[in-house]
């Protein structure tokens, strides 16, 4: 039996919604960031899969995934830098403790 495109999509969808669920429910900012990584990863998979199955002759999805990985790495770096900074100031990275910024 062939592994068709839907199988990959099922995996990425579940990963995506697991990320979403995590993003909604976690209170720790790092955990939220991890959930974001999950979501990003799921989209990366989708790009690669679509490219591979639907347009195998081209490389758009491939490169998109590549750049996306680079950018998510950068994003992680910045986010973590911010979090460390916050942690230094308020000794916590729980979302409920850092509501002051919104006022």
């Amino acid at each position, binding site marked *: 039996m*062939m592994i068709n495109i839907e199988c990959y999509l099922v995996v990425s*969808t579940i990963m995506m919604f697991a990320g979403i669920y995590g993003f909604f429910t976690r209170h720790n900012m790092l955990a939220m960031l991890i959930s974001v990584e999950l979501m990003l990863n799921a989209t*990366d998979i989708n790009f690669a899969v679509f490219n591979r199955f*639907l347009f*195998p002759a081209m490389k758009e999805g*491939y490169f998109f995934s590549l750049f996306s990985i680079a950018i998510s790495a950068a994003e992680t770096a*910045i986010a*973590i830098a911010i979090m460390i900074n916050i942690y230094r100031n308020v000794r916590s990275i729980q979302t409920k403790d850092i509501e002051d910024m919104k006022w």
Partner: protein
Amino acid sequence: MGATFETIVFGVLAMFIIVMSVLTVTTGRIVRSATYLLFVLLGTAGLYFLLGYTFLGSVQIMVYAGGVVVLYVFSILLTSGAGDKAQKARRSRLFAGLVTSVAGAALVLFITMTHHFVPATGNEIPVETGINNIGRMMIGSGKYEYILPFEAVSIFLLACIVGALLIARKR
């Protein structure tokens, strides 16, 4: 035979990824969460290998699994104190999140399943693109070549490095 092997590998990888990603968001400890994430990322790299995108897979392992997760672990170590154990979320909130996610997943899966994809005909066997080829495409300026995004990302990464340093440095 090859197809069957692939199917088995895919099945194992898919189960592994699904379980790990669910564990990532459900586990109470943040370190474990990061570890499960690492497994998810590795599994994803496996999927890329399976698709025949070996370069992408290796990038995934090197950058994600190697770089990002390490960053996570370090930052967890730096920021976790007494409250490293994730706060128990409110039940209603958990429930709302769960319902929404499940509903969303169901909806998306339903669409995915009902949508009729038209796979490209032709060679089913993945053709590995050579690294030198990828390198050319990366710095070429013709059609389907990506010098502009490449440079943008480079500057972006530089900016991120500087920014991360600036933000995280001690005052």
